[in-house]
């Protein structure tokens, strides 16, 4: 499907008009996406829709936002959600301390009495406004739209979710004292969730949805190769195989790709050329984060892990 037919490119980087090409570009940015994820990102950019990512911790949800910001050469604006987050922390806030200081200064200089209303007008100008991530993303001007990462939406509460819904549908913020700020172009929005609770359907409906799975053996090897190029090929394959086995071992917390990379890095730092029992024991803390899991692995499958 050619550009001429479509007439719009969304936020796609120049030279990319197929999802296969995007996949290649992501790869150049050190992110290996499967076909599904590449298609999802392609559509999100092209249709300018938010992308909602779910998956186990450490499968690379946040990484998608980072690589997009690198690839599109735009700033990454991150909003980390937490329980109790509200508009003042996510959108904007008046800098009250500075406003107060401004009044005091005016008083001290004796200018306050002269023109009261002018002083008040001054107080509610951009000088005294603290931009928080959502406003930053909407206010961004020039060049490509920024990447807006709204991380762990499931941690925020329903009230905030409702607010997000509003922002993500018209990308504008109204500040009573100043007016409405509208985004030039919708930011590339990436939402992530760990599914501690089900995010409201209305929010999901606004987004494209993708669930990131653990990669299979071959892709994991490729990811490690790409991200930890210092690792010996033999070590890389051994680590990937071991992690695949760990995932099948019924652990409290099966390792994600993030752990695979940490582990490989730890092994490389220790100068390991290949995986052996001593090395596993020394570096176990970077893959398995539960004492019970470590015990289990040490007990039953040291050999299995390192073998063949």
């Amino acid at each position: 499907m050619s550009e001429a037919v479509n007439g719009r490119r969304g936020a796609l980087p120049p030279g990319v008009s197929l999802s296969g090409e995007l996949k290649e570009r992501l790869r150049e940015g050190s992110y290996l996406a499967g076909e599904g994820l590449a298609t999802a990102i392609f559509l999100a950019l092209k249709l300018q829709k938010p992308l909602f990512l779910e998956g186990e911790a450490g499968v690379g949800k946040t990484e998608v936002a980072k690589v997009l910001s690198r690839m599109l050469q735009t700033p990454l604006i991150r909003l980390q959600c937490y329980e109790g987050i509200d508009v003042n922390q996510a959108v904007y806030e008046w800098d009250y301390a500075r406003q107060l200081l401004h009044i005091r200064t005016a008083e001290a200089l004796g200018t306050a009495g002269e023109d009261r209303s002018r002083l008040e007008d001054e107080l509610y100008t951009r000088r005294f406004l603290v931009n928080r991530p959502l406003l930053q993303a909407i206010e961004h001007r020039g060049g490509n739209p920024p990447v807006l990462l709204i991380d762990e939406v499931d941690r925020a509460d329903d009230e905030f979710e409702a607010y997000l819904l509003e922002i993500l549908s018209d990308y504008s913020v109204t500040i009573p004292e100043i007016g409405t700020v509208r985004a030039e172009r919708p930011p590339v929005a990436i939402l992530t969730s760990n599914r501690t609770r089900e995010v409201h359907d209305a929010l999901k409906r606004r987004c494209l949805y993708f669930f990131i799975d653990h990669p299979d053996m071959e892709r994991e090897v490729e990811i490690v190769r790409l991200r930890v190029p210092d690792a010996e090929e033999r070590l890389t394959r051994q680590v990937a195989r071991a992690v695949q086995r760990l995932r099948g071992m019924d652990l409290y917390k099966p390792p994600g790709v993030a752990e695979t990379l940490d582990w490989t890095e730890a092994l490389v730092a220790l100068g390991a050329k290949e995986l052996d029992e001593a090395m596993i024991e020394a570096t176990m803390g970077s893959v398995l984060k539960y004492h019970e899991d470590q015990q289990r692995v040490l007990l039953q499958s040291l050999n299995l892990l390192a073998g063949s």
Partner: protein
Amino acid sequence: MAPGTETAPPMLRMAVAFGRLLRRVGLAAGPDRVVGFAGALEELDVGNRDDVYWAGRVTLCSRPEDFEMYERAFKVFWEGKEGLKVPDPPGSTYAIRLSPDSVQPPKKSAEKNEKGDEAVRLRYSPVDVLRKKDFADCTPEEFAELYRLMADMRLSGAMKRSRRLEPAHRGRHDQRRTLRGAMRTGGEPMRHRYRRARNRPRRVVLLCDVSGSMASYSRALLRFMHAGVASGEPVEAFVLGTRLTRVTRELATRNPDRALREASKSIEDWSGGTRLGDTVKEFVDVWGQRGMARGAVVVLLSDGWDRGDVEVLADAMRRIHRLAHRVIWVNPLKAAPGYQPLARGMAAALPHVDVFLSGHNFESLQELAYAVAGASTERYQ
């Protein structure tokens, strides 16, 4: 070859038809999602099977549980004409597999209830008896009446302090509002404002055992779960059988009959065997540890019958206990005089349970509601 290659305009029609099929098999593929799907198809190569597949998956699915159905429906709809001859067309595969009386109260009694309004009122004192009657002995008519009582029940978790602050007369100093007020008085903070953490109910997680041994109770208990989920409080509901099924979404509709019908559709192993330990473990692995059980009130409704390895159950319960605010076990058998927790699973789980209740009749469910809210249950025992 994908059907969409014939002409361009039918794309939307194809999308609509596919959406209809998905809705029929239980996906929430509403019109806006279908329009999104059609929009996505325009951007991709409709002759390419994978493009169509992924376009649909990112626009029409909204949770991993949808993928399996989507996969099957996709095969039938898009992958060739044999779709119609496929041995299990969606119509029969996804139809309700249960005999209708397994969850729903028989239709007759519901109708009777409708016109028998005055009869209920006249039988006021029997209601009192009914509250204490064991679910296992109740007639369909009595169930219908019990359900009416249950609908008024509220299931609200013990309060916890939220991180969200609200204005209050005392508490932490609220700079923002104090200074804001000071603007009006020429920058002089005349009145100081305060705020403090709001209280919110904790999440309640209900896990109901629907295996064969619980058959005489699970119908009523599911109804109870529905009342909890539909009340609008943060309540999550799961069903334990030979596997774990999350039914929160299905139970969330107001109409109880519909809710139970939906829920029973997703429960594949109604009255099957008991692998309590494995399913409880699955809950901790997949949901609990990730955050759902954290700080929540977790309620298990089960007789503690476990054919599997009880160590698995004990271990899972230990983990839940560490995560949750409070663990409540409801066992209908506890009401029997001289009950001893002899079922091996029950005995293994008890050390990790904070409150042990019976739950065999309406009154005991009320007790449960009190226990969930963190009120003392001593009065009711």
